């Protein structure tokens, strides 16, 4: 049986460039949420998002800016470079035996938004001739492949909020099946643009206040952006090149509700977590930390809690469960990847990052999600969950590497 290990992680988010900035922010509860305003939104109802700072956007543009790259591809490249550097991959480690699986929810949203505005409002026919290759959902993955020379299979799952988790899961399956030796996997999102922001407002799932997952007074999510990319390898290839192993990816499962487009189904989310546990050959009791999807919408958090209770039973109170979205925002297609990296760091440092902005326990939820302050944990296994619109659930299970 091929074992799959992680040897590199890279992240870019409102917390800054790099995994260290992300981890420091989530542990300390320093939120990257800031005021955002969109030029063409006259009556903006929601005034905050976990957007990259202007300084970081500038640094990204300086390092990987290119007239054929939407910010979404730039974010993916920055995260991939960090992951590759940590894994110490050399030129010979790419090629046909290295795949790229990087998903995105909206793809090149800025290019799409700018060009529709130019076309529909400014009535110009002089649009960006590179709009098509910048907008397409696989552009981020393709740029990472071109940049590194990873010429194995390339996929770009676009499954809304599960894109990042499914990408990592799919890469794990490719390695397990022997199709590749290693994979650059994750998700990227750069959809904080006027048109996209407005339609999120209209869906009424964003809070005009603060994002408070699992808190009784929660009333919606806060959008984010960024990218997370990890290097996954078969244990054999990692050992053959003497790589430092961060942890092992031991279980993955994904399923579909085949039900409602927006309303999540607790039974299916529970089924997904159970399948991931069984894939890993672990029982629920061995999981000591769960990074929840925890969007902070009324419906998600109730559903997810029901699912967690049915998987962990009475033991749920002994499991540290938190949502780090109030810190890095809901980064949609990048969320699963960013949160997988937070989960890996939690496992490596044996610390459960807190759910900040938590005010009061909701009787419909009835547990404390590591509220407001990080907590030490003692565990060898941690889970990261994504529950996406479209009824797509994905669960990843990481384990400390002990040889």
């Amino acid at each position: 049986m091929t074992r799959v290990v992680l040897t590199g992680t890279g992240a870019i988010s409102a917390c800054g460039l790099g995994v260290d900035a992300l981890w420091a922010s989530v542990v300390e509860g320093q939120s990257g949420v800031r005021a955002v305003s969109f030029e063409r939104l006259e009556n903006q109802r929601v005034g905050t998002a976990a957007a990259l700072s202007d300084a970081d956007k500038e640094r990204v543009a300086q390092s990987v800016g290119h007239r054929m790259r939407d910010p979404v591809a730039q974010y993916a490249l920055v995260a991939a470079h960090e992951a590759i550097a940590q894994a110490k991959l050399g030129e010979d480690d790419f090629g046909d035996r290295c795949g790229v699986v990087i998903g995105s929810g909206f793809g090149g949203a800025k290019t799409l938004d700018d060009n529709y505005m130019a076309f529909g409002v400014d009535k110009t026919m002089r649009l960006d001739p590179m709009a098509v290759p910048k907008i397409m959902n696989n552009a981020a993955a393709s740029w990472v492949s071109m940049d590194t020379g990873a010429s194995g299979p390339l996929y770009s799952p676009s499954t809304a909020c599960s894109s990042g988790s499914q990408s990592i899961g799919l890469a794990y399956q490719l390695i397990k099946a022997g199709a590749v030796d290693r994979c650059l996997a994750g998700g990227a999102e750069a959809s904080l643009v006027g048109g996209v922001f407005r339609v999120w407002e209209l869906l009424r799932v964003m809070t005009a206040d603060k994002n408070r997952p699992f808190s009784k007074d929660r009333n919606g999510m806060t959008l984010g952006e960024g990218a997370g990319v990890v290097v996954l390898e078969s244990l054999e290839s990692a050992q053959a090149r003497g790589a430092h192993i961060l942890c092992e990816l031991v279980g993955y499962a994904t399923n579909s509700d085949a039900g409602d487009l927006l309303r999540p189904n607790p039974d299916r989310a529970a089924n997904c977590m159970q399948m991931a546990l069984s894939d890993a050959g672990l029982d629920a009791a061995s999981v000591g930390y769960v990074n929840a999807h925890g969007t902070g919408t009324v419906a998600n958090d109730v559903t997810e809690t029901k699912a967690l209770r049915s998987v962990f039973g009475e033991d749920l109170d002994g499991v540290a469960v938190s949502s780090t979205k109030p810190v890095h925002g809901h980064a949609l297609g990048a969320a699963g990847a960013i949160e997988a990296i937070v989960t890996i760091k939690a496992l490596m440092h044996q610390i459960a990052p807190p759910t900040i902005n938590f005010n009061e326990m909701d009787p419909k939820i009835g547990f404390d999600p590591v509220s407001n302050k990080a907590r030490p944990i003692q565990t060898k296994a941690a889970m990261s969950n994504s529950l996406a619109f479209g009824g797509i659930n994905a669960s990843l299970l990481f384990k400390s590497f002990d040889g």
Partner: protein
Amino acid sequence: MSTEKTDISQELLELVAREGMVDVSDITPESRLEDLDIQSADFVMILMALEEEYGVYISVDNELSEVQTVQDLLTLAQAKIEEGKKDATA
């Protein structure tokens, strides 16, 4: 004051009927939204109309998720509109 309140109730009732795509004569404050076949997607339409007409942004919160009857919805909408007015003048 009481006339104003009645007026807004009637306006809101009409708004709910229009956006929920039900005949206003079929609606009474006691009607259960479920029985009128007003579902989550219709809720979003109702909330959008409230934003357009009264300038209040109402995100889905615990109170809204407990709304069962037309009257529950009207009461909550009125409270949110009042809250919105207060915020605007604050």
